[in-house]
């Protein structure tokens, strides 16, 4: 779903996506300093590999996105990380088109980053189960946000590609639940063991 191929979307949607993507990339790259590059690269690799593993679900097939986790750990830097992963997937495997790269980046990275930025002040105060719940909420919101963005991009391009609600309900709601569980565990663990990886101790909010 999230990897939209070439030739499906209309030109205005592609251009709009590309403009938003360039804006996001600029913001993300400005925040990349020496100490953050390795972490960003590791999560970019994780995204690259994790979203190659597809699981058949009902009438379609889904894969992990981990955009909520990336948003929480990397903040705006998740945008360049997702971009690199998507670019390599498109070039090496033909997953998603090169012209739709901007739209795909917006669809996958932006909901995760937005949810994470909103949830970060809450996460700074949460402990244990609370942190897990926030991580889970961010992940679920990210997946549903991605679904909404993909649906909007397709619907705006042509009525022919109007996604079917039945397929979305059957495939993305399970995906949102799985991502919620994974992200909840990882965030609770990081919060307990290494809160600075979430940018929390040194600079409590919106750490750059």
């Amino acid at each position, binding site marked *: *779903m*999230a*990897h*939209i*191929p070439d*030739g*499906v979307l209309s030109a205005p949607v592609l251009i709009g996506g590309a403009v938003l993507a360039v804006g996001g990339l600029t913001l993300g790259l400005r925040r*990349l*300093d*020496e100490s953050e*590059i*390795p*972490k*960003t*690269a*590791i*999560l*970019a*690799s*994780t995204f*690259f*590999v*994790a*979203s*190659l*593993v*597809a*699981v*058949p679900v*009902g*009438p*379609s*097939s*889904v*894969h992990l996105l981990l955009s909520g986790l990336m948003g929480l750990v990397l903040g705006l830097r998740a945008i360049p990380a997702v971009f*690199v*992963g998507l670019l*390599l*997937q498109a070039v*090496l*495997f*033909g*997953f998603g088109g090169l012209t739709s790269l901007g739209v795909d980046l917006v669809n996958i990275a932006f909901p995760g980053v937005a949810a994470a930025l909103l949830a970060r002040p809450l996460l700074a105060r949460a402990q244990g189960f609370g942190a897990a719940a926030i991580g889970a909420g961010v992940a679920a919101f990210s997946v549903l946000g991605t679904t909404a963005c*993909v*649906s909007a991009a*397709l619907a705006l391009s042509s009525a*022919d*590609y109007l*996604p*079917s609600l*039945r*397929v*979305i309900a059957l*495939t*993305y709601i399970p995906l949102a639940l799985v991502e919620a569980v994974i992200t909840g565990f*990882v965030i609770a*663990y990081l919060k307990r*063991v*290494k809160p600075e*990886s979430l940018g929390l101790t040194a600079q409590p909010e919106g750490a750059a």
Partner: protein
Amino acid sequence: MKRVFPICAVLLVLAAPRPAWAHRLKLFLTVEDGALGGYAFFVGSGRPEGSAVIVKDGGGHELYRGKTDDHGAFRWKPPVAADYAVTVDAGDGHWVEGFLAADRFGAPAAAPTPATPLPPSSASAPKPETSACAQPDSAALARLVEAQVDKAVARQLRPLIESYDLAEGRVRLNDVMGGIGMIVGLAGMGLWGLARRRKASDRD
């Protein structure tokens, strides 16, 4: 940060032993007995069930709209041999298009013809039994043989084309490792650039 390494490693190990894991809708198209058929599949695993199948002609006019069965398969007999574009839309942004050229339909379209010209030729030409009858017969026979050969070749080639389509979309471990290597290289280049910039500003 160090703890993200094990996650990466686990994901890699989980993914590695399988021959293919991926996520792209692909289309296998074939012509059998003059009918256009085949199936859509997700590279790695799964077939889209109940997805829309749309056949358009060369001019982009919609000729047929149907659904894939439980195995992602479909079949439609076109009225004439022509260029067709087949689209399968899984309904959630998964979308694939394939093309069949008119000459793929050549023999099966001709196959029914021997049945019709044969009776008139034998009925209207009762006198010159041997010589006149032999001509249409051999032409009909040639068409019949061609149709049968096409059918047999299609049957033999089908598994080959299927496995080729499968192999073409397969995600290989080498590519995955290459991608990770590129990300590591990119991170190194970023660090190098930042270090150079800092060195330059320290000197000033």
